[in-house]
């Protein structure tokens, strides 16, 4: 990398080009907006995490002694709402995606920079509404808003929470819209679809879900709010409505929303594995299309959340079989990542440790999904801690692991500084161990029959041992999440300046300076190479690529 050796100390970049609050709040630079998102979602992550910690502390003992049941109900509701709508859904797309999508395809910015800023403001407005809702009493419906509890029975701030999520939803829609248009229209000359990094494919698939799924939850929340304030009967059986219709509409979005969280994470992990195995990804096109397949199939499976809700058993059969269809492309991805390591030259830097952690936890989360999609087993384990454990393996073990891995991987590019490698490896290890200690016992609890959303289990003392283990794990996990925040902050001031390409990674984002300039590239790049050309990077010339089998 001859072009990256010159390193003047104060080169102009997107961070030091302008100073002052206004230069941030009115910026249209996708990288600055990404940082605005980074700060805001980190804030919400720690709020959601605080709720989680209180939940775990309450469950340390069977009796409801730390908080009252109604407080507990608000805690898990707001934990869910904050983590899902204000952390996980924006996490990778709005931070890493915002920062990297234009750079990876060789564009100067997203197609609609002002809409990008608008979507951050929508997120903030939604976030402030959510905070206001939480500070003035909170909401206790569960993040699922099931009717008729939410529309006719709960006496908490349902309307406020619904509107907050409605507004934040538009932020997500606009981000997705921006990505799709950018990926279609803004690719640099030579950047064909088959040369796109798989991170881009993953974000493209994610955007499809954001664009087509989010409006449905938006209108559903409008109906809930209207029903609650005007006493309509659309979901209320007392007035002739059907509460299951709400569940259909809710899960039509909220199941695909899981893929909004996990697909970008898969994209991140793909980049990391390719880099630290120094290899082209095994089966590039299969990995790319499996992202699209997951996004599309993800829309066909929603009612597997409703197998015991009173839906028709024939519909249940259809949704069960379709749920297995979505498992195939997920399995394909795991196999391809594993195969990529074959005959690689593997480095164990911190991002790679996160990627390994991701594969392990995602595999377990995915396989337990097979249990839940099996109709007969779902009857027993749905609405128990088995489900809690399963989706935390996917969303925390998967999505969050990927997010942290990506943050480490691109931190030198984002901040222009290196983080302390030793601490980072330690944090990865702590997160992995803490995570398993927290959530593995919950699989057992779930099969034993402990229902979710129970503030008090004093009549079931047999559940306590596993709950204690889980709470112990949660504290470890908490430390694991605090560490990266501390050393990232530390590195911004004391970290060593990062070279342009510290990992010698492939991809356009590594060919510009660290941190990049405002328009990303000094000159518009022309792409003449395939994605993941690690052979050229490591040897300076193209190797013969083998096709096995």
């Amino acid at each position, binding site marked *: 990398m001859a072009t990256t050796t010159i390193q003047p100390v104060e080169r102009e970049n997107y961070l030091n080009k302008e100073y002052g609050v206004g230069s941030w709040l009115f910026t249209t630079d996708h990288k600055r907006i990404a940082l605005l998102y980074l700060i805001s979602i980190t804030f919400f992550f720690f709020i959601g995490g605080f709720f989680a910690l209180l939940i775990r502390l309450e469950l340390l003992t069977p009796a409801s002694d730390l908080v009252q049941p109604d407080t507990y109900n608000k805690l898990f509701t707001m934990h869910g709402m904050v983590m899902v709508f204000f952390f996980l859904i924006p996490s990778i797309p709005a931070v890493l995606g915002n920062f990297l999508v234009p750079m990876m395809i060789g564009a100067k910015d997203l197609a609609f920079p002002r809409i990008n800023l608008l979507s951050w403001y929508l997120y903030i407005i939604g976030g402030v509404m959510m905070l206001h809702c939480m500070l003035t009493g909170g909401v206790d419906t569960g993040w699922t808003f099931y009717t008729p509890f939410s529309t006719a029975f709960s006496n908490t701030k349902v309307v406020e929470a619904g509107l907050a999520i409605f507004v934040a939803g538009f932020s997500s829609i606009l981000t997705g819209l921006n990505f799709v*248009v950018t990926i279609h229209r803004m690719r640099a000359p030579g950047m064909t679809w088959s040369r796109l990094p798989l991170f881009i494919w993953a974000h493209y698939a994610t955007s499809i879900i954001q664009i087509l799924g989010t409006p*449905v939850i938006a209108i559903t929340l409008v*109906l809930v709010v209207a029903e609650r304030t005007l006493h309509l009967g659309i979901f209320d059986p007392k007035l002739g409505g059907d509460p299951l219709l709400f569940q259909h509409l809710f899960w039509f979005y909220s199941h695909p929303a899981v893929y909004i969280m996990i697909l970008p994470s898969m994209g991140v992990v793909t980049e990391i594995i390719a880099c630290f195995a120094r290899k082209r990804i095994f089966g590039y096109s299969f990995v790319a299309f499996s992202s699209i397949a997951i996004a599309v199939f993800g829309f066909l499976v929603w009612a597997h959340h409703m197998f015991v809700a009173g839906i028709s058993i024939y519909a249940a059969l259809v949704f069960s079989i379709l749920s297995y269809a979505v498992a195939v492309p997920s399995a394909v991805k795991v196999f391809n990542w594993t195969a990529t390591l074959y005959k690689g030259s593997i480095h164990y830097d911190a991002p790679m440790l996160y990627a390994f952690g991701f594969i392990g936890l995602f595999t377990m989360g995915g396989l337990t999904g097979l249990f839940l999609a099996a109709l007969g087993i779902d009857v027993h384990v749905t609405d128990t801690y088995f489900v809690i454990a399963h989706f935390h393996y996917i969303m925390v073990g998967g999505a969050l692991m990927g997010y942290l891995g990506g943050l480490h991987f691109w931190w030198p590019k984002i901040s222009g500084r290196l983080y302390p490698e030793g601490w980072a490896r330690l944090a990865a290890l702590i997160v992995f161990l803490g995570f398993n200690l927290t959530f593995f016992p919950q699989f057992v609890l779930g099969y034993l029959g402990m229902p979710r959303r129970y503030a008090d289990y004093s009549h079931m003392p047999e559940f306590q041992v596993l709950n204690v283990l889980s709470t112990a794990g949660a504290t470890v996990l908490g430390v694991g999440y605090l560490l990266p925040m501390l050393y990232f902050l530390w590195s911004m001031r004391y970290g060593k300046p990062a070279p342009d390409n510290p990992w010698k990674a492939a991809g356009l984002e590594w060919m510009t300076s660290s941190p990049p300039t405002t328009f990303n590239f000094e000159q*518009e790049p022309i792409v003449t190479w395939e994605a993941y050309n690690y052979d050229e990077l490591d040897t300076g010339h193209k190797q013969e690529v083998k096709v096995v089998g």
Partner: protein
Amino acid sequence: MSDSTVVGLHDEEQHHPELLHHFAEPQQQRDAASLGMWIFLATEVMFFGGLFCAYLIYRRMYFGDFGAASKSIDATLGATNTAVLICSSLTVVLAVWAAQTALRKLLIGSLVITMLLGMVFLGIKAKEYKDKFEEHHVPGASFSFDHVPIPGHPGQYANPRHAEIFFSLYFIMTGLHALHMIIGLGLFAWLLFMAWKGRFTPEYHTPIEIGGLYWHFVDIVWIYLFPLLYLIDRHP
């Protein structure tokens, strides 16, 4: 990955004044805007789609009650409104065509007529709402729908609770549609202002095009709302 692969294509001097800095050429900017609008309309389809889903399920469940409720709305007003919107769609395409061919007077005239038709639509809508309000067909405490016969089933009366669901959906669907019309009017007021100032040229008229796409979409939504809400079971 040597320097030879990175060649400057960037040429600041050739920029059209309306070309934003991060686009390479006007065509790219136009294509991006148009694709963006289409994708936005896709989200709108799904937004209304959730309502259509609820509507279809209840219509199937409570067909007779929905028929009775639907019959209480004035279908002639609905048909008139459909015609009004179709005419406004025509003036919108004329506006786009006028912008492409630099016929400024036609452009401004079409935009004005479009907005007038939009207001006529909203006026008729308001009349409909007023009638419903006076008939106590607005869901809520004063709702009443007693002894309304179910079409085709002599002696049977609609269940008021099910009719109330119809009217809830009717007001939410037409209300959201009307909200889209109002936003459209705002959009077109801005387009008219820009056209007045002569900002649109055959090279640069993307705002007119994407504004037009929006207007047509709102028209299409109404094309479905009209038979679904007004014409369920009209025959004597």
